[in-house]
């Protein structure tokens, strides 16, 4: 039998020393790639994720284009070296599902009717995974869209909340994701008070889901502030030494 996984220490702190509603350390940088129209990089705990946007550009082949709005093409992909066991580069069923879930979470933010017959390509690459990759990926992808100058109704940030040892916690790390009782990723746009991504698996009572949802909203609002700061920093000028 393997050693017992310790998810909470005696003083109530989580396996990585955090309190229940504490986010992992987050670092965001916008505008990191030279070829993409827009790009962003996020580090959240040990997650390292890169997002890039190309477009809007002419949608080809023509049969995929829509006459009155732009379409989105989204690819969520994990690098083979991103996990402990090497992951095959071919898209897994999970990546196929998440590419769709993330596209559906980003699309409502884009003012698509401004660019008929075009396509916006969004690439999310997980370079190092540590739980909550779809959320961190979404947070970065939104910034990549803003960096590309694509008109958005607002920004959205995402965070996975869940239940570990009976307690509702914010921003699950890999260990908590694997051994906890429930995992609920949420993406929220504060401007329109709208959730664009919502999934849950595990076991949670109605009250627990409600509590987790409230914590998720608060957490994503904190992350939204970080997004705003990262965008402002991207476009402001470094203090020059004269």
């Amino acid at each position: 039998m393997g050693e017992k996984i310790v998810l909470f220490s005696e003083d109530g702190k989580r396996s990585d020393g955090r309190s229940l509603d504490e986010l992992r350390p987050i670092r965001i940088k916008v505008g990191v790639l030279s070829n993409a129209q827009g790009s962003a990089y996020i580090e959240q705990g040990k997650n390292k994720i890169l997002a890039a946007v190309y477009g809007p550009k002419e949608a080809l082949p023509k049969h995929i284009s829509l006459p009155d709005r732009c379409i989105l093409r989204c690819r969520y992909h994990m690098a083979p070296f991103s996990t402990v066991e090497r992951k095959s580069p071919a898209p897994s069923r999970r990546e196929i599902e998440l590419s769709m879930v993330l596209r559906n979470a980003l699309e409502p933010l884009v003012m698509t009717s401004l660019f008929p017959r075009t396509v916006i390509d969004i690439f999310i690459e997980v370079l190092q995974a540590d739980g909550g990759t779809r959320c961190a990926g979404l947070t970065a992808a939104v910034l990549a869209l803003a960096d590309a100058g694509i008109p958005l109704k607002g920004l959205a940030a995402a965070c996975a909340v869940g239940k570990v040892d009976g307690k509702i916690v914010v921003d699950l790390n890999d260990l908590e994701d694997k051994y906890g009782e429930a995992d609920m990723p949420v993406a929220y746009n504060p401007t329109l008070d709208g959730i664009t991504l919502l999934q849950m698996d595990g076991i949670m009572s109605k009250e627990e889901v409600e509590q987790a949802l409230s914590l998720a909203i608060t957490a994503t609002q904190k992350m939204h502030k970080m997004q705003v700061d990262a965008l402002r920093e991207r476009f402001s000028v470094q203090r020059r030494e004269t």
Partner: protein
Amino acid sequence: MSITEQRPIISKLEQQELRRLLAENKRIDGRNPLQYRNISVQLGYVEKAEGSALVELGNTKVLAAVKVGIAVPFADTPNEGILIVNAELVPLASPVFEPGPPSEESISLSRYVDRSIRESKSIDLSSLCIVPGRSVYSLYVDLYILDYDGNLIDASVIASVNALGVTSMPKYVVEGQTVKKTDEYFKLELKDRPVSLTYAFLDDKYVVDPCLSEEYASDFTLSMTVKSDDRFCAIQKNGGGMVSPRRVMELLDKSVELGKELRTVAYSRLTGGNG
């Protein structure tokens, strides 16, 4: 790569009608917003499967069949049986289903049904071990969509649980170094009977169990799977659009109520246990 779908065009007239009716809490087929269509279940529909059920939810028809075998367990769960759910959007079911490798819709459907069964612990996978680390039972649940008139998710969950509820497991015994199949069978024990409830959102209003035109006209759907003890084991927003946190909380409430009724109707044919 996930690409924005080319949705079949729904006429402006139909869109208008749906919304106008909804404003008066009416629906295009006469139902009220929180009413399910007629459900009929035929157990043991295909004999060569160890368990099966054909479910009709309105015109939507889903056939779930369970095939039992033995397999090498996964490395990280050496004492657990294997459960694999696979949904096939059979081309004859709809003009929009095309033959070919699994689409993102079929994968998403498979994975949601899988989570609904797995997370609810409806099957105790640890009771399906024959030789730890070497040989376990494998349960393949194949969902065959035969007719698509909206709400594949709820129909598929109901079909899967019914099929598992009548699954007869061939008994395997250890004989020296090998595992041998006997002529005996034992019934697979169903520990829970989860139901999923799917709501389609049109503007700010929602309807449960959307039919095809409601699904096409909607901005997105929200599915919630509830267990017999009223706890949730899966939630998924499908499609674009946005939903307010307040609405989600409202639906959590409604789902617990509706789940109780739906469970009674959907699993009425399964004998014993709690309905």
